[in-house]
């Protein structure tokens, strides 16, 4: 991030704001079990961080996920969620029954399972927010 952004205001805002948003997103994600927060909120924060980058730097910004990749990423994020559920089936339980995931330490199985799906949700929400933003702001809408 060492390129000039055009104006000092944008430059400062970007440089100081985005890292905090990203860190806050990570905090919200990881701390979701004990305080308000969770995957959606974190995903929204990440998405906003990237959208800010887009707003400031335009299409070719450095902190970027291009539209096509975002769609794929959104699918993969939800896939992580579903896959964790499917993993529970492979380990002999019902869908999303975290208690059977025997490779995890016993007391934290549920917590870690929740964390896993929250990560999936985060990725999906972030990617989708970018996708929608990207699709809506495209100039060349073909009709």
């Amino acid at each position, binding site marked *: 991030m060492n390129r000039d952004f055009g104006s000092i205001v944008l430059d400062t805002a970007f440089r100081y704001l985005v890292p905090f948003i990203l860190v806050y997103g990570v905090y919200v994600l990881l701390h979701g079990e004990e305080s308000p927060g969770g995957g959606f909120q974190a995903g929204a924060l990440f998405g906003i961080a990237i959208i800010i980058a887009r707003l400031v730097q335009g299409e070719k910004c450095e902190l970027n996920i291009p539209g*096509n990749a975002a*769609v*794929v990423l*959104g*699918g*993969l994020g*939800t*896939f992580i969620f*579903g*896959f964790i*559920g*499917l993993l529970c*089936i492979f380990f002999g*339980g*019902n*869908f*999303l*029954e*975290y*208690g059977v995931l025997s490779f995890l330490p016993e007391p934290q199985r549920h917590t870690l399972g929740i964390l896993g799906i929250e990560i999936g949700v985060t990725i999906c929400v972030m990617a989708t927010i970018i996708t929608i933003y990207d699709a809506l702001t495209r100039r060349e809408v073909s*009709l």
Partner: protein
Amino acid sequence: MREQYPALLIIVPLLTALVIPIIAYLVKRLVRWIAMGALIIANISAIGALMHVLNQGVWHYRFGNWMPPWGIEYVIDPLSAGMALLISFISLVVLIYSDVFLKEEGWLKIGMYHTLYLLLTVGLLGMVVTGDVFNFYVFLEISSLSAYGLIASGGSKAVVAAFRYLLIGTIGGSCYLLGVGYLYAITGTLNMGDLAVRVQPLMDSPAVIVAVSMILVGMGIKMALFPMHGWLPDSYTYAPPHAISFISGVMTKVAAYAMFRYFYFIFGAANETIAIVLQVIGAFAAIGIIVGSIMAIAQSDFRRMLAYSSIAQVSYIALGLAIGNMYGLIGAMFHILNHAIMKCCLFLIAGGIKWKTGEYKIAKFIEMSRKMPKTMGAFIIAALSMVGIPPTAGFFSKWYLVLGAIEKNMWIYVAAIVLSSLLNAIYFFRIIENAYLKKGQEDIVPASPKKPELPFSMLVPIIVLGIGILIIGIFNEPIVCQVMQYGLPGGGMR
């Protein structure tokens, strides 16, 4: 894995839908086969679940292994398993059909289309097997959103139609959710089975009446019951043919099925309030049957005609619910099956004709029988079934409906059904006349083995469904007595 059929039924198509974008990005050709594989697994799961249910009674599948009122459960009885099988089967058939329309598109379009298509299937499957009223809403929205997208991809007119559908559909969804809210407020539960127990002592409460009417409006909009059908004709007319075949086939039917679930399993039709509401539904349905049929006669566009005919046919199902005795309900459930297959077949034929000749206008169907003999053969079977000529499937749903209506002395319903089949005859025989009897000007090159009338992947689904109509008609007794009957209220399910 056998114990996991209910989960696999939903999860496999869902996860496939999620990875399809990346597969499409990597290998465009593979998408279609992977989607097909997922739907085949869904079909197998549905069959497995159906067998299991028929042998061992209602199947409760608990997600996360939490006990029902706290966690979410799937309740699979013969009816819902049958519905799941119907949905996944039609989904598979239409997927095979849609190949021709998408071959030329780029990876993004193919990927997105198949993703949405599978998501629509997932949403509908989730709606029929779920045992939780809020989970139902979630899947309702999945199916609705993907349906909006699929409809809107049909062109600039379709976008307007889809937007109007979105507005009305979301109102329906919100009404449904408000109804759920009222139920939750007075019972404190979201599980259908638990709700059914806890709502019974409260049936006289006005809050229940609100909930009932809100759910009626919500489901009525989704199933295009008569005064709430405004979104349907435009959407069905302008949507792409491959998508609308599936949407028309099952989407309204799933809402009708949900309505059946609510009125007969949760609220219980024995209640006085519900009996009145059912009479209201019946009145709307009777009007809808006549209005839909008459409007269908007035159309010159084949798809629009089919759309209005859908309104009439869905009203048959509502009429069966309103009749409410065993035969009426059998008729309603059987008509869900029949109409799904008939209407899907007809829309596939419409798409085929469009693909071959570029025409949707009925007046331009002249000499179609020589251009596309096999397709028109399937059309005749489907049309006769819509009219209700034995031994096609449509006759037997009519048979059960009239049987139920006469048993309860509801003569207006009988009149509506009889009148409607005559009106159906008018608009379907008009097309048959056009296609078979009128002589066109130019010489037509009839289809030959070398130059078939339609690509193989389009012809097979049409013919499979056409034959399916006959088979369901002739062998309706096993379907009714060995599957549906156990799913009806008090039907002797173990």
